C-alpha cells in the first residue's frame, strides 16, 4: 500500500500538551515537514520559547535548547556564531518575542543573524491564562483588559512583520495563517523559504503565523479559526513583507 501521509521524521511520536483546536500543533508539524524536506534534521538546532510551546524540545527530533522567556534570539546567536554551518531556528510566542524579548529580536535582526524565527501570534498570553499580549488587538477582551484593549490605557499592538521588515539585517519576513488547508500550505511555503534563506546565508528570516487560542479566547475551535480569518487577519494582513534576492 502506498503511504500518502505519515508523521515527519523530525516530529517525535509523543502526545502534545496543547488544547483541542490549538494551532501550535499544526505549526510544529509544518516546521518538521520543512526540516525533513530540506534534509537538515541532523544539523538543525531549535530554540524553544517560554509559553504554551515550552515543551517543543520534547516534540522535535533535532537538537533542542530551552531558552528563558524572550531570549531565544540571543541564545540562537550564541549557537549560530560558534556553529555557523548548522541550521538554527527559534520558535516563539507573541508574549515571548514581542514583549519581554523585544530587544533580543530587534537586535538579532539588526545584526542580521543568520537564523530562522517561527513566530506564533495568537494575540494573547496562552500559558499564563489569557492576559493581554503586545499583539492583542484593540477592543479584544483578555483577563487584563476586561473591557477590551483600550489603546489609550493599554497601549497599541505591535505589528512584528511591519516592524522588522525595514531592518537591514532581515532577509525574509512573512505573515501567514493556519485557518484552512490553503492557508496552511502557504504557511509551509513561507517557513520553507525562511529556512532556505538561512541555508543561503542571507540573514534573519521570520514567519509570523496567525494562530488560534480557543481556550483563552473562550471559543470552540472552528469559531476560533473563523475569528482569525474575520477579525484578526484584517488587522494583521497576510503576505510577504520582505524577501531579499
Amino acid at each position: 500500500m502506498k503511504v500518502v501521509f505519515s508523521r515527519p521524521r523530525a516530529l517525535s511520536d509523543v502526545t502534545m500538551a496543547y488544547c483541542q483546536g490549538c494551532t501550535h500543533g499544526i505549526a510544529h508539524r509544518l516546521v518538521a515537514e520543512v526540516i525533513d524536506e530540506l534534509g537538515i534534521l541532523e544539523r538543525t538546532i531549535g530554540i524553544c520559547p517560554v509559553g504554551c510551546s515550552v515543551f517543543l524540545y520534547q516534540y522535535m527530533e533535532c537538537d533542542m535548547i530551552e531558552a528563558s522567556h524572550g531570549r531565544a534570539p540571543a541564545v540562537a546567536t550564541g549557537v549560530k556564531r560558534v556553529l555557523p554551518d548548522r541550521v538554527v531556528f527559534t520558535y516563539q510566542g507573541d508574549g515571548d518575542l514581542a514583549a519581554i524579548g523585544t530587544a533580543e529580536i530587534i537586535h538579532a535582526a539588526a545584526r542580521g543573524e543568520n537564523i530562522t524565527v517561527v513566530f506564533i501570534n495568537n494575540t494573547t498570553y496562552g500559558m499564563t491564562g489569557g492576559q493581554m499580549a503586545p499583539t492583542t488587538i484593540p477592543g479584544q477582551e483578555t483577563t487584563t483588559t476586561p473591557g477590551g484593549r483600550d489603546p489609550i490605557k493599554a497601549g497599541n499592538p505591535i505589528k512584528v512583520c511591519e516592524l522588522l521588515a525595514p531592518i537591514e539585517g532581515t532577509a525574509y519576513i512573512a505573515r501567514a495563517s493556519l485557518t484552512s488547508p490553503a492557508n496552511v500550505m502557504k504557511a509551509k511555503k513561507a517557513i520553507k523559504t525562511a529556512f532556505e534563506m538561512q541555508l543561503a546565508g542571507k540573514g534573519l528570516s521570520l514567519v509570523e503565523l496567525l494562530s488560534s487560542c480557543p481556550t483563552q479566547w473562550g471559543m470552540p475551535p472552528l469559531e476560533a479559526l473563523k475569528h482569525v480569518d474575520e477579525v484578526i487577519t484584517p488587522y494583521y494582513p497576510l503576505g510577504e513583507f520582505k524577501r531579499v534576492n
Partner: protein
Amino acid sequence: MTTKVLMKGNEAVVRGAIAAGCRAFFGYPITPQNEVPEYMSKYMPEAGGVFVQAESEVAAINMVYGAACAGVRAMTSSSSPGISLKMEGISYLAGAQLPCLIVNVQRGGPGLGNIAPSQSDYFQAVKGGGHGDYKMYTFAPWSVKEMFEHPSLAFEVADKYRGPAMILTDAIIGQMLEPIEIPEKIELNLPPKPWATTGAKGRGRNSITSLYIVPEDLERINLEIQANYKLATEREVRFQEFWIDDANLVLVAYGCVARISRTTMTMAREKGLKVGLFRPITLFPFPSKQLLELAKSGKHFLVVEMSAGQMVEDVRLSVNGEAEVDFYGRLGGIVPSPNEILEEVEKLLKPSLYQVMASAKTSTN
C-alpha cells in the same frame, strides 16, 4: 618558554581566557571592565573565536548560554549593575548545568553606585544571586598574574562539575599594571561534551533544558547539582596562608584587600605583633575546613572586606563558634589602607584599659 610582559588585569583575564581555550565572548560595556570586551574584540578573532557586542547584559549572558550549549568554552564579563542583569541567565545556566565563565570586575553599589573598587557582590556571587538553589564556582584573583591563570582553573572546574564559574575581582585588580610571565602554551584539559547540542548527526537528539514540571524530577536534578557542589567542596578548595603558624590574630581577606592586608601583616610583624593572613582563593567552594582547623588551634580572626560584611558570614559559619571573628569593612568604593587595618589589629591585640582592669580585679579575688 615564557614571555615577560607588562599588562593590566583586565587584559590578563582576556589573554588567560583565550589561552584556556575560550572561543566565544559576548559582552556589553560598563566601567571598570571595559578593557575586557575591548581586548576581546581584538584578540578573540585573532584566535579564531567569536566576539559579539550584545545589546544588553541580558542578551550577552544568553548568547553565552547558546555557545555553552554548543559545547564551546564561552564567557562574558561585566561589573556589578551588569552582573545583576545577567543573573537571570546565570540561574538558567546553573539549571541546565552548562559550564561557562563570568567575570565580575566589581564596583561600588547598590544601584548605580560608583566606579570605584568594591567587594559588595560577594553574596551575589557565592550564594546564588539568581533564583533557585545554585551557586557559582567563584575565583578571587589578587594579582595580574592570577587574572591570567584563573580563567583556565575556572573553565576546568566549570566543565568538570558542569555549571557557571565566576572570577570575582574588582576595579583595582582589573585596572592595575603588573609584569607577568606568559607561557607559550597552556596544557588544555578539554573534556568531551556528549550532551552538547551540535546537531543530532550520528546520534539521537540532545536537548538542554532547566524545565522539570514534575517535582520529583526537579528534585533529582537539584540533588545532582548539589552532589557536584559537594564533590567540588572536597576537591577544588584553594587558599593561601602567610605567617599563620605562630599568629594570634589571622587576617582573612580576598582579592586586592588580601594584598593590602599582607602589607598590614608585615607592618604588624615589624612591631612584634603576631599577625598572619589567610586568603581564600576560591570563595565557593569556601575553605571552611581549613578555617575551622585554625579556629580550633586558638586563632582569633579579623575579616577585612570592602563591604558591610559579607564574607565574614562564611568565616563565622566555618569556625562555628570555635573562635572570635571580628570584622573591618569600608564601603562606597573606599579602599582600606594598610595603616587603617593595622589600627584595627592593634585595637584587637592590645587589651583595653577596661579589660586590663577587669583581669586585674579577677586575679586579686
